[in-house]
């Protein structure tokens, strides 16, 4: 086979009757990563209640390798932002994301985290993707546990398809040092425009 250890003994000879496989390194690493994601719940509203239901015995998040919930960002792989994020909390969420070590992913759970939801007002961030990069958006108000599980499975699929040769994958985002924004202000303004019902709201009460 040509596979040999440094001492010159053939691996096939060493393994004997024990089963062994060959695989691509990427596939092996990704398999390990996707089945041991440690989620860090960042629950700010009712979505966090659904998240708790997802983690509890009936839906049992542990089935997908999430037995251990990380309540410290330094020991987490996956940030699940569940609920609306007011502007006052924006620097906190940004800091938590920066404290998480690579590799890390983010799920934006629910309408408010993804787009501001019904809170198209002065106090709420219109989508956390203007603060931190998001991998999976889970729609719903709040999403049912099945919805969150579907989102998590989508993320696992994404993790499984990552390639270590892709150098952009693990790059830390670099916010603009002056404005602390990491996407262009015009883009933020554009995606934060009112949509749906709130188009008909007046900008002022008078």
């Amino acid at each position, binding site marked *: 086979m040509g596979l040999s250890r440094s001492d010159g003994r053939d691996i096939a000879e060493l393994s004997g009757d024990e089963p062994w496989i060959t695989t691509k390194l990427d596939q092996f690493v990704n398999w390990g990563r996707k089945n041991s994601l440690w989620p860090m719940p960042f629950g700010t509203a009712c979505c966090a209640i659904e998240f708790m239901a997802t983690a509890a015995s009936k839906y049992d998040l542990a089935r997908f390798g999430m037995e251990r919930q990380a309540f410290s960002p330094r020991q987490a792989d996956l940030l699940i932002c569940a609920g609306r994020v007011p502007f006052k909390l924006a620097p906190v969420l940004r800091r938590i994301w920066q404290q998480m070590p690579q590799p890390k992913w983010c799920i934006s759970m629910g309408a408010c985290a993804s787009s501001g939801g019904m809170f198209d007002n002065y106090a709420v961030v219109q989508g956390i993707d*203007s603060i931190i990069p998001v991998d999976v958006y889970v729609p719903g108000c709040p999403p049912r546990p099945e919805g969150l599980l579907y989102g998590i499975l989508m993320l696992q699929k994404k993790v499984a398809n990552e390639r270590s040769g892709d150098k952009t994958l693990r790059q830390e985002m670099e916010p603009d040092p002056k404005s602390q924004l990491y996407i262009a202000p015009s883009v933020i303004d554009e995606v934060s425009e009112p949509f749906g019902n709130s188009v008909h709201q007046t900008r002022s009460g008078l």
Partner: protein
Amino acid sequence: MSQSFTPVIAGSALGADATAPATPKNVRYQGGPRNPSVDAIREKFADAVVRAAVVWGETTLVVDGARVHEIIQWLHDDPSQRYDFLSDVTAVEFRDVEQPLEVVWHLRSLPFRRFLRVKVLIEKGEALEVPSVWDIYKSADWLERECYDMFGIRFAGHPDLRRLLMWERYQEGYPLRKDFPLRGRFSRSEQLRQALAANPEARYSKEELSIADAFEDLPNEMKRRLGKGEVTGE
């Protein structure tokens, strides 16, 4: 050692023949039994009372802004009133531009089982300033700060009148005022830029921490920063 604590039993000052508390039924929109404190105030502060009304069984008393502190002080101190609980301080602005802005105090007397709503009217164009009742009720601290944060009403005599809900360097105005646009005055990117400029760790002023006696326990770096007079990172 903490001091011995005497619980206030609701209705305890009413005497043995007082009826047991019951949920009021068939309450009319206007009219009905009035809070007896109103008559006492009318007698004592005759020129300060603007009007009084009973709405949905609750008594509202509109008084002169210059004398509201005196009246609330009396309601708190007088043995025949004993309003010992301030449950809310808030304000109301109406869509009608002619109508004055109202500052509202919700007072409750547990011993006499009474509720009184005291209002002060601020005409349009007048300075938004009323006296603080912090020296009477310590619970007024955050209630007045919230009211200042949302309406911009200044409470004269409040020891630490800062924003409570919005961050301290919030520049867009007072969100619950009728002339405040729902989505704020700045563009979304500008709002986000200002929000992200805040330092999430610097959250307390030295004064707040010294009240809690926590200043000495802080890390040196934070002590140094607060020692320089940094109020907050926001």
